[in-house]
């Protein structure tokens, strides 16, 4: 009897716990049936105008303001019931697929209001702007390029959403709705005679279209990238690749740099004549570590700007530059307009001009420097004789190391150190007393 009562009591508790939140959730603020949105609008008068928009967010339309806002008090701004970056996912949780291959940054950050008006708008999906204008708000460069290019890609003109998913994609990177080739061949049928002829009989439907074509449009016919490798422009694919009828169609005739050496022999011979080669040139990938084989947006068929290109391998150096730039920003803000003496960052490397000091292929000098000595390298921009009267040169021995001579790098580090004047110590005094020990306090 006792155990029966116990079970009854427990069941009662469980049912209450299950049912109460449901009932509570439906009207957690115990608003009168006609109160809901109407009550809010009695104060938020200007909101009535907003509701006249063509597209109204469903909870707003049904007057369920308390779905998102707490009418009394809330720990989040705008009396939001939840963190502004999380509140949308309460209802729209399926926006990002389970194993996405790419997610839009704003979605990842929960910054839905970058694109959507949470209440109402005159654009479908309560978007802030219609069509590509919304995308080009952030992707300004892309928008500018698309408007300027001579040869436009029709689907891009019609709308970014033809190829991209605005939230996330579980099929491809860059938010593409499908694998790039699959997307392209959905319009450009690869079995059409003209398609086959244009691609010199190569089965390009198995390749990567974006290795030659700029999918957003370009100034070259066939929306090829602006800089085209001569054999591609001449449609002589067999100069580098096996014949299209071969079993290994896309295989190159020679591996690595050996293929490029066939035409670029002068440059390659000069490279190999130097004491030090940039090692990636002679690895399996070779020249293609930095250059596109077919066409590219960048000059010299470079894969990207040198900041991202060099940073692909030298990420430690580039990450250091990002930290220095951030420090510079903070210190400038703290100085409130007062001038700060001494550079924290080196302009060429901040701007990604690594080739201002280094040679990308090979050099006779250590660290692939473009000049035999640091005076000459630094002297190309800085007149060091005006910059310092400190003795330097082949006859001045560094007192810390009897086998090295004083030069710019004796006191500075060209990639920056985190200290002003790019010196390795917090103050100039700290630096000087390394050698001039008699002044050490």
């Amino acid at each position, binding site marked *: 009897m006792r155990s029966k009562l116990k079970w009854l009591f427990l069941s009662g508790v469980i049912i209450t716990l299950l049912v109460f939140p449901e009932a509570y959730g439906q009207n957690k603020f115990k608003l009168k049936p006609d109160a809901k949105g109407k009550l809010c609008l009695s104060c938020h008068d200007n909101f009535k105008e907003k509701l006249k928009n063509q597209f109204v967010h469903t909870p707003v339309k049904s007057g369920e303001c308390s779905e998102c806002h707490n009418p009394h008090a809330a720990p989040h701004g705008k009396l939001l019931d939840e963190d502004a970056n999380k509140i949308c996912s309460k209802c729209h949780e399926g926006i990002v697929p389970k194993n996405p291959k790419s997610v839009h940054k704003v979605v990842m950050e929960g910054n839905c209001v970058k694109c959507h008006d949470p209440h109402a708008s005159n654009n479908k999906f309560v978007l802030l702007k219609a069509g590509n204008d919304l995308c080009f708000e952030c992707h300004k460069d892309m928008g500018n390029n698309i408007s300027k290019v001579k040869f436009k890609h029709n689907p891009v003109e019609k709308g970014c959403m033809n190829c991209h998913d605005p939230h996330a994609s579980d099929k491809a990177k860059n938010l593409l709705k499908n694998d790039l080739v699959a997307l392209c061949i959905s319009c450009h049928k690869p079995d059409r005679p003209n398609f086959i002829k244009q691609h010199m009989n190569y089965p390009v439907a198995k390749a990567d279209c974006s290795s030659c074509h700029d999918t957003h449009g370009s100034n070259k016919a066939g929306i090829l990238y602006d800089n085209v490798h001569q054999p591609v422009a001449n449609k002589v694919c067999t100069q580098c690749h096996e014949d299209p009828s071969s079993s290994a169609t896309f295989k190159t005739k020679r*591996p690595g740099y050996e293929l490029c050496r066939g035409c670029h022999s002068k440059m390659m011979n000069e490279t190999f004549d130097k004491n030090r080669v940039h090692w990636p040139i002679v690895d399996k990938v070779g020249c293609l570590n930095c250059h596109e084989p077919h066409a590219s947006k960048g000059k010299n068929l470079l894969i990207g700007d040198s900041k991202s290109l060099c940073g692909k391998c030298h990420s430690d150096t580039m990450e250091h530059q990002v930290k220095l730039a951030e420090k510079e920003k903070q210190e400038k803000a703290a100085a409130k307009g007062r001038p700060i003496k001494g550079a924290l960052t080196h302009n060429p490397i901040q701007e990604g001009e690594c080739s201002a000091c280094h040679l990308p292929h090979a050099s006779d000098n250590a660290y692939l420097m473009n000049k035999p000595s640091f005076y000459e390298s630094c002297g190309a921009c800085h007149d060091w004789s005006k910059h310092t009267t400190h003795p330097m040169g082949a006859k001045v021995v560094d007192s*810390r*190391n009897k086998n090295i001579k004083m030069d710019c790098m004796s006191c500075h580090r060209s990639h920056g150190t985190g200290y002003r004047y790019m010196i390795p110590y917090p103050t100039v005094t700290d630096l000087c007393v390394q050698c001039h020990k008699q002044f050490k306090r």
Partner: protein
Amino acid sequence: MQNLKKHSAERIEHSARIKNRKTSTLIALMFLILLLPINIYSAETVRLKYIQSVYFDEKGVGMKQPEGVACNEKDLLIVGDTGNDRLLRYSYQDRSLKAGTEIRVQQLSNPIRLQINSKGEIFALDGKKRRIIRLNPDGTFKGYVDGEGIPSPSTVVPRSFKIDPQNNIYILDIFSARVLMLNPEGKFQKQVPFPNEYGFFSDLSVDSKGTLFLIDCVKAMVFSAAKDANSFSPLTKNLREYLNFPTSMTMDNRGTLYVVDENGGGIVILGRDGTYLGRQLSLGWNEGLLYYPSQMVINEKGEVFISDRGNSRVQIFTLVK
């Protein structure tokens, strides 16, 4: 009365049991507390103690950006004086350094990696020609190590190489993305391809069991392959939090890995299972500090030689455990 006695006996027994349990818990806790520092200590056991620096040859000519260094179990120390296109032979015993004789052979320029086999033969990787050269113990030219009978592709670009105690030669062939194993005469024995996902391999190492290790300077990771394995797998995660740009590595006789952080001017120590054990030395110009170091070697006595390229010297340390 009897019941009362029995009850109090039970209570005494119970409290004794609780006391015993408490004592054993305390002992276990004490044991754990005592063990903890041992574990921490074991992770920090290896230290590099500075001994001396080598700057000049016997004629007083200074080294110029030396990148290679090698030693054997006797007293031989060879320096690859890269900037001067020559090798330097020293004798180092009981912390005494002698000579600094120049070895200059027509076939060798820009020596960037060195090894010595058990016969005293000197091997140097020529950074300009990207070829491994073999010298007799007296420093005269013996031949090239091009690898006889290497399967296709026949092009080999060695980025580094190592020689094991049995004089087998291991070549890091970056052109064909593989490690080549040659017998002491230079005949092909075996090859292991690089893993599918990697950045750029800049050095390799081999332990006494024949396990191969590769250091990826771009991904800041170590990969390994057991003696009979035909593929490499990651030994460590990305080590970027401990180092900047690792370009070479070596091992001591216990199998501890020492990774040279070129851009960071330091040495990162890893257990043979890839566990991070610590970081030694730092960037600078004074003795005991490193400025863009290149190769590092350790002998059986625990003496460490580092080619301190940016400081144009070789520094000698000893392992303190």
